[in-house]
């Protein structure tokens, strides 16, 4: 289990991370989502000890993550801006990384075929998508306990994305690998994440199991006979209100059945539907709550 406790970091005078708390269970796929520049990559780099935090600490399976603790040997990080050593082929890089990890040759060869990647092609001459696949193949072949993927599916076509998720889910299921994925593609994460942390301006706004989050944040649409005053609903925790014609669409936390009862007690309900919310919608709602995207 990966836990990040009260992690804070300043770059000069700029507070990049503030009191970050993250808990990712063993065998869980954790989606780290957030606005641009909110500190997702910085958080991942702290886990890998690329950066050193000013405050807070990180543990994995109860052991504090430190550059020299040795626990880091179970981590693998695929960064957003990929770097490959000059003139290296995937095969050469595999053998180089073999000096540091117990790389699985079997998995490597299987994934090469699965993604149809030429292992003898110089990595820096590959397309962006091929490079992502190459980096992903290496990360899986390294068989880490904690895999950090930063914008891994960014720029990939739908077929490759699907292949990525298939491989990842299989690895998680087979080896109980913990995966932290930072991504902007919330629709993709919606399908595979067990848990989500929403970041904004260096803080974690909300961290929850995705199912629970979806249970907590609900959307209903309703219409009543006659005039409706929103003030009537002030006892409910309404996050967002949209009115289209005579139909109100509310995003709220709490029990929607009570809302329905409340409305029925005061109005004649013409329409009341519970709508399912996607991760993207939850994300927009959460960030909207802190004013993001609503600047004038």
């Amino acid at each position, binding site marked *: 289990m990966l836990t990040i406790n009260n992690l804070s970091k300043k*770059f*000069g005078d700029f507070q990049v991370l503030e009191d970050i708390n993250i808990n990712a269970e063993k065998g869980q796929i954790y989606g780290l989502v957030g606005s641009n520049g909110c500190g997702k990559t910085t958080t991942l*780099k702290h886990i*890998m*000890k*690329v*950066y*050193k935090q000013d405050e807070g600490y990180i543990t994995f399976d109860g052991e504090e993550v430190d*550059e*020299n603790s*040795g626990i*880091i*040997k*179970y*981590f*693998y*990080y695929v*960064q957003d*801006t*990929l*770097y*490959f050593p000059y003139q290296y082929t995937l095969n050469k890089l595999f053998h*180089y*990384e073999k*000096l*540091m*990890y*117990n790389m699985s040759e079997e998995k490597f060869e299987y994934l090469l075929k699965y993604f149809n990647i030429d292992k003898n092609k110089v990595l820096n001459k590959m397309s962006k998508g091929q490079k992502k696949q190459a980096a992903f193949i290496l990360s899986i072949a*390294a*068989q*880490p*306990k904690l895999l950090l993927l930063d914008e891994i599916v960014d720029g990939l076509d739908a077929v490759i994305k699907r292949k990525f998720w298939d491989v990842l889910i299989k690895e998680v299921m087979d080896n109980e690998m913990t995966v932290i994925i930072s991504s902007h593609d919330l629709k993709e994460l919606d399908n595979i994440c067990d848990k989500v942390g929403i970041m904004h301006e260096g803080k974690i706004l909300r961290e929850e199991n995705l199912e629970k989050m979806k249970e907590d944040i609900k959307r209903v649409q309703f219409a009543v006979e006659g005039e409706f005053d929103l003030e009537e609903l002030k006892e409910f925790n309404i996050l967002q209100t949209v009115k289209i014609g005579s139909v109100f669409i509310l995003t709220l936390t709490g029990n929607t059945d009570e809302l329905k009862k409340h409305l029925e007690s005061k109005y004649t309900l013409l329409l009341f539907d519970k709508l399912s919310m996607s991760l993207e919608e939850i994300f927009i709602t959460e960030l909207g709550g802190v004013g993001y995207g609503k600047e004038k």
Partner: protein
Amino acid sequence: MEKKNNFMPMLLYSIKEKRNWVLLSTVIIFLTTLVIPYILRADEGTFILFGIVELFILVFINCLVDNSFLHNESKLAYYRSKPVPLRNQIILNIATNAIFMVYLLALIVLSVVFQGLDYEILEVFKMLIPWLLAIILLASLSSILSGNTLMAGAMTIFNFCLPLIILLVTMFIFTILENTVIGFSADVLNDYFINNIYRLDYLYFVRYVDNESIDLTYLLLLPIIMIFISLLINKFIKRRKNENTGFIVFDGFKYFVAVLACLIIPAAFSISFSRYINIGSRLFISALLAVLSYYIIIAFIEKSFRISRSSIKVFLVSMVIFTAVTGSTVAIANQYKDLVPNPEDVQMAYVGNQRWSINEIDRFLKDDYKSENLDFTEWKRNRNIVTYEDKDSIKNIAELHKEILKDQTFYHQSNYYGVNSFVIAYWMKDGSTIIRDYKLTAQDPFTKEHEVKIDLANKLLNSNDYKKQNFYYLYDEEYFSGRNLYAKLKRVNDYNTILEDVNLNDLRDVLRQDIDNIFIENDMAFIELFMHFNMHYDKETILEEQGYILEIYEKTSDADQNYLDEIHLKNDFVNTLEYFK
């Protein structure tokens, strides 16, 4: 997934990765040190030295390239995310570069062997190896301290030259001292500092290049320096946060560089113009230069023309410290400015205008000239150095010193060309040395103070010490006996025509008589004392008078002559001129 003990395999891998560099370096070194000199049939030694310079550059570039992963965000993230601690990665680079260095040195040795050159050329290795090792470690240290590879290169050179920069700043303080405390010379202080306290010849291993064999100091100093730099590397690895915050990632080091670098330009200015611009103007200009240099350096390092409050604070504090150190040095020196030693405590003294002579004597006393296998008298004779050991002479020098402290002028003739550095040195019986350098101003008319100085100078010129050393071929019986000494008479405007060639034995008495007479009541005695005899007579004066010179030489065989001295026979040499008539 489990990490193995992977240092050795990674080192081997790292060396293997160097194969293109190795190939290129081999071609460069062999081409320069073997092929080109062979084709040109040129001096192979010079080309070996070229090869050594190339080796230095190759190792330096390699170190920077290997450590450049610290300066690129994605590269850094890639390597730092691997289960190899930063310390191990740096050690790996150091080890790889050390092996690369050994390989290149071996190539140079092979070139020397193939060409059958004298192995003495490899003496330079005694200095080169420590330099290369230091460069490898300093490149790693500088890369850790910097956020940019070019800056890391610049910082490597800065760190390598740091002892020299400190020396420059010290010299800056000495030039201020020279201009504020009478008798103190920046050059003398600097010589003393370099020769006795701040031994850069040891630190840079320069002294071992010329035949000096490797000694215990070398064997101790080399590992001490390497360990010191390694400890700094270890310390800064622990403290490096890796975020790219500028050209230099440690604020402390940034200010250290800026403060020292901003002193280089004013120091260089002050040292260069110490004799031409008065101290007030010089300090004012130096302060302006320091402020400007600091601003430019900070603006460059911080990539902003807006200087931060903390940068201003650091500069002000540094300048206060610099002023305090300089002020204290001046205050301490002031306490000794009137010091004239008790003649009883003096073993030997020197007066003249040649500070070089004092350094030479010091070196002789430290056995630096042991290899020449000469006694002190003979050694001094070869260098035209005169010292005084006689009690009366030392007493007269002390008196003269007191007079100089009272009045820093001397009487001069109109055609005197104006050397005005007057140096007094005492070698004390307790082993210490006192050196003073006074800047004397030539003055006309003649004053009472001049008379006292001339009187004391006359006493010194008539002393046995002086004559025996300056005119050894006339006054040193030990030297004179058993030698074939001769004198050639020539006209000053016709050096090729020998008018007379006489045995000095015949001329000795009349020449001694003239010299004795000249020094008695000579109103130019003071100038005579601190300049070489007759030097204040220019060619015109000699031509105006008799225009004769006397060349003294020793006939070592029928074919060989050993030139000893030249005396300008002016009108005062009555007896000698009469002899030749």
